[in-house]
């Protein structure tokens, strides 16, 4: 593992010696990592590698067995910090019977947005994910990709400085995927810190920083370039194999 930043950026999320198990099965082993402000951190790993568990801990939804997570200097889980974090779960957690608008309004009130703010933000986020024309449609009639986009829209509603997205681009068509990535870069520029999990290797290269997870261990951390250089690989996939100990 190596630290890739030469410039001493501000740290948005600090993860220290994190361990987590479920039902006696250890999912995460001693994870240490820092996420810099206004950067996109990608967490790459196969399913079952502990990505979701790690981002849940970083989003302050779950409590670690031991170790600590600090978000913007505050120890999480912490109820107040949840207002600063936008979370998009891996499974689309939407109310199928409700329309997109009703879903958005509901989550907006959970974040305490006023009526006027709700209206404004719903317009903005739905434009962003290109679902504006489907606002009044029941979510159960949405396609998988549309649900994914709506979940993303909900995560963005309260303009959180920290955005945690668990597999945000699954089932989204390539054209829209590019526009979502462009939007993530734009959010980044405006100061948001973003954590994205993915199991798609080529998507990993789009992140500013990359963490590779395998069987609950963080096997590499750095910018994609650093990781490629360090492992003498041409592709991220080769690098993953290198750090995973499969290739010398």
């Amino acid at each position: 593992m190596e630290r890739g930043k030469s410039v001493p950026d501000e740290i948005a999320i600090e993860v220290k010696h994190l361990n987590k198990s479920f039902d006696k099965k250890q999912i995460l082993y001693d994870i240490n990592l820092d996420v810099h402000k206004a950067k996109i951190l990608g967490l790459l790993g196969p399913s079952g590698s502990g990505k979701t568990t790690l981002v849940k801990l970083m989003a302050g939804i779950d409590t670690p067995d031991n170790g600590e997570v600090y978000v913007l200097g505050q120890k999480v889980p912490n109820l107040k910090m949840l207002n600063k974090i936008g979370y998009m779960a891996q499974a689309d957690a939407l109310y199928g019977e409700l329309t997109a608008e009703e879903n958005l309004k509901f989550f907006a009130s959970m974040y305490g947005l006023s009526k006027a703010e709700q209206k404004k933000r719903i317009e903005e986020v739905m434009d962003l994910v290109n679902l504006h024309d489907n606002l009044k449609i029941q979510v159960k009639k949405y396609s998988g990709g549309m649900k994914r986009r709506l979940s993303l829209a909900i995560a963005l509603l309260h303009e959180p400085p920290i955005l945690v997205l668990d597999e945000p681009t699954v089932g989204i068509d390539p054209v829209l995927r590019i526009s979502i990535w462009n939007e993530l870069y734009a959010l980044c520029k405006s100061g948001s810190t973003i954590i994205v999990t993915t199991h798609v290797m080529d998507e990993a290269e789009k992140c500013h920083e990359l963490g590779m997870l395998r069987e609950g261990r963080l096997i590499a951390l750095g910018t994609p370039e650093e990781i490629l250089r360090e492992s003498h690989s041409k592709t991220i996939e080769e690098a993953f194999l290198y750090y995973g100990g499969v290739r010398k």
Partner: protein
Amino acid sequence: MRVRAVMVRILRQLKHDKRTIGLMLFAPILVLTLMSFVFGGSTYHPKIGVVNAPLNFVNSLEEGDAVVTRYSDADSEQALYKGDIDAKIDFQNGVPHVKLEGSDPTKSKAVIALVKSASLRSSVAVQMKVQYLFGYKDMSSFDSFGPILIGFFVFFFVFLVSGIAFLGERNSGTLERLMATPVKRWEIVMGYVLGFGVFTVLQSALIAWFSIYILHIMMVGSFALVLLITILTAMTALTIGIFISAFANNELQMIQFVPIIIVPQIFFSGLFDLSTMAGWLQVIGRFTPLWYVADALRSIMIRGKGWSDISFDVLVLSLICLFFIIVNVITLKKYRRI
């Protein structure tokens, strides 16, 4: 206000779910109507065949609302066998010999009681004066257990629908997603209580109104008190339903709790007379919410009792409700410890 947002969301979900609304509103009404047909009939008129009976005895039987037919000895046996009559009465040396069809104990008892009173009346002309403290002459059994049924249906449907709704929230991942927002655990539980609360007020009112004003179930007390009890019943069922949903993995498993959570409550609710049961067994009833519901509703509707007589039931039901609200807030810790 997050509680209000949860409440509004639940009402919106219900609005989109016409089938559930139909189930909660019209299923109890349908079943209550059917039960009023089955149990609301006037008292049974025994069919009696007589052989060699003296005229004044037959007259007394008919005064007692029996359908009396004269038979020869052989014909009467056949009629009894075919089930045309419930009993034959054969007078031998002035003594009535009663032979019962006997397959239905209720009918047998009715016949015996009737014959006893008829022979009394034919010999001594006694006119009995009967007074009722509660109830009235020819009160149907539906009047007597109708109040329990009202409570039961409110409990049953609210338990099932709220339990399944909360289960859906657990299974669809929305509960977990909700826990990633700054909402407090108690706000979710209270939102559920109020959201379903609003709906169950409507449901309880409709069921109570329909039973009393359309089915003409006996009702001598205050309608407002009936509403108070049915709403409390719904709240209790709601909080218990949410609690039980934590132990079910899917809708089928939720239904599997009905025989464990609901059915025993019916037995102890007073629908059946338990006074012959061992004392310690009767005490079990005091641990089932439906017992207090039934006790209160019967007191109001049949005995016309007021607040002072049902306040204890109200207190117990409110405490059960409060207890499960707190338990539900605690069990949500499974999803987020803070």
